[in-house]
């Protein structure tokens, strides 16, 4: 081979190992899942023995009340945790972005929940939510309030897992926001101060708009993660009571292991994947739309009067 053509191929040799890992670790399982979603496949069968049923798994899922309920629970869960976490994380970051004694220690303590294994988080919260010995009910009782059926009432159970998730993942948003805040140009903030912006106005008119790219990526990461959450809820409620906390990841896991319907589970996973892809895509499109819209309106302003 000529050395010039070898030279051209060099970059491909370098990325070949990564490409191989990607193909084996990502593309293969995904295509396997795609294929499996068209099969009526029992775990006792080999994949070759399973019957091809086409889109039947996909269509029956829509008539399945449990699946629709689980999808609804997932949407409620994901959007409420991410919304609350974003607000809390951003507010904390805005509040703690200052040089005070002991601030670095405080920041470290803040991110501790993120470092705990999800199973442990689930266990911890299950004990805290325990109807009689849990710290919440004991505290409520000691102040003379009634006990709350944290995990045994369907409405409260959803609220309880939302609280636990917020506790665990607000720090993630907090540290990303803090990093974004600390990389903002100091002189721009000083200019805002000179222009008479108070702390609120600085946050709303300068800091948050400048942090927007980071906020959007953070939101996306958290949403994707929230749609896939499993372990904490598995340990805390195992989807109950009823289907009130059976998020889709849990439904998939039960369909595969308890109901032994691998094809249906794969179809459900595909629905989740499509949902997340749509979410990501719409966020990027929205972002682009906003930018174009802004440019247009600014042009309009420039033409008439400022």
């Amino acid at each position: 081979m000529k050395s010039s053509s070898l030279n051209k191929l060099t970059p491909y040799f370098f990325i070949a190992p990564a490409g191989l890992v990607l193909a084996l670790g990502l593309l293969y399982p995904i295509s396997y899942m795609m294929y499996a979603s068209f099969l009526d496949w029992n775990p006792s069968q080999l994949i070759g023995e399973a019957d091809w049923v086409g889109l039947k798994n996909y269509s029956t899922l829509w008539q399945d009340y449990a699946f629709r309920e689980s999808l609804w629970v997932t949407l409620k869960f994901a959007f409420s945790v991410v919304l609350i976490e974003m607000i809390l994380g951003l507010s904390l970051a805005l509040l703690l972005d200052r040089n005070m004694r002991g601030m670095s220690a405080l920041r470290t303590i803040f991110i501790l929940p993120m470092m705990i294994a999800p199973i442990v988080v689930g266990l911890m919260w299950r004990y805290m939510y325990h109807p009689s010995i849990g710290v919440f009910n004991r505290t409520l009782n000691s102040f003379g309030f009634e006990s709350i059926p944290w995990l045994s009432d369907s409405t409260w159970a959803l609220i309880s897992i939302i609280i636990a998730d917020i506790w665990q993942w607000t720090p993630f948003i907090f540290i990303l926001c803090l990093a974004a805040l600390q990389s903002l140009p100091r002189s721009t903030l000083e200019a805002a101060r000179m222009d008479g912006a108070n702390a609120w106005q600085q946050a709303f008119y300068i800091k948050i708009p400048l942090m927007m790219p980071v906020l959007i990526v953070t939101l996306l990461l958290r949403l994707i993660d929230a749609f896939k959450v499993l372990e904490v809820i598995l340990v805390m409620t195992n989807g109950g009571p009823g289907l009130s906390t059976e998020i889709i990841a849990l439904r998939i896991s039960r369909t595969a292991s308890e109901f032994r319907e691998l094809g249906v589970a794969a179809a459900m996973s595909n629905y989740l994947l499509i949902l997340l892809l749509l979410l990501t895509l719409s966020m990027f499109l929205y972002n682009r739309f906003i930018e174009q819209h802004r440019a247009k309106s600014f042009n309009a302003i420039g033409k008439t009067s400022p």
Partner: protein
Amino acid sequence: MPVITFKNLRKAYGSAEIIHGIDLVMEDHEFTVFVGPSGCGKSTILRMLAGLETVTSGQILMNGKDISQLEPIERDVAMVFQDYALYPHMNVAKNMSFALRLAKYPKAEISQRINNVAAMLGLETLLHRKPGQLSGGQRQRVAMGRALVRDASSLLMDEPLSNLDAKLRVQMRTELAIIRDKIEKNIIYVTHDQVEAMTLGDRIVVMREGSIQQHGTPQELFETPANKFVAGFMGMPPMNFMDATLVEENDKLLAHTACFSLPVKDLHNKHQLPSSGEVTIGIRPSALLPVVAADETSEHTLTLLIKVCEYTGSQSLLIAEANGVRVLVEVNSQPSFKVGDNIKFSVKPSDIYVFDRNTELAIY
């Protein structure tokens, strides 16, 4: 427009004091330039005046009213930052109107003020653009416009031209001088560039290590520097310094060095001279005049060996040596000088500055 007064102004970070008791009066409608090497505290003083840095002790007075504890917005000052500090997510019009919008001015007045300032700075066609779509010079003008729209009585500028390339800097300097005549404001300007200081300032404050070295008009600073530092800092190329001994012969002062002796003008404050007569003399590069061959009779000259000749057009800068001491000479490029030549130069007695070698203070 207010008179701004600093009274024993100090700034310390922990135990390290970086501004040592500044006393200064900046008159009404005056363009004051703070100049000095980096780290001399000039920017800190400006930021204290702006309200971005706290005052450790002392006072800042505006027309007699102490403003040193007020918030920036309460001080009636606007500022232009070195890196412009524009709001990247707002277009030019929004950048300029931010302060007015915060202060809830009526829309009609905001747009009128923006149009006025934009017209003055030539920004009319750029109002809808974002900072990212502007060149360095345009951003600089927007930063200036944002400060002017506020119509504060004093305008603070922190090295506003230092991020521009050399050609644009000279152009903006001229524009600044023109704008300056159109606006009735105190301007307080910080720079490390003595040319900017000389060309723009009504008065210059030369700073060094947190203290004022001299405060005066560009001419005063150039012609009667208070000390060796000011003499060396103001003027380009810088003044030459040489150790010399002053001796009085026949009622005339002569400066003796190892290889030449030159007559010095009569000093009013002879009593300030050290008894040993040991001083530092200073001669500006342009004060050294080549002695033409016909004039060989002139008795007080110094002979310099030309080491390097930097041709810059009509003028040339000679880097020469006298007895191992480097001397800069600014001459007309015609007649030309060759490297390796030994050339005789004379100096008018009035062009020789005398400094106390220990205190570095100028003696006149």
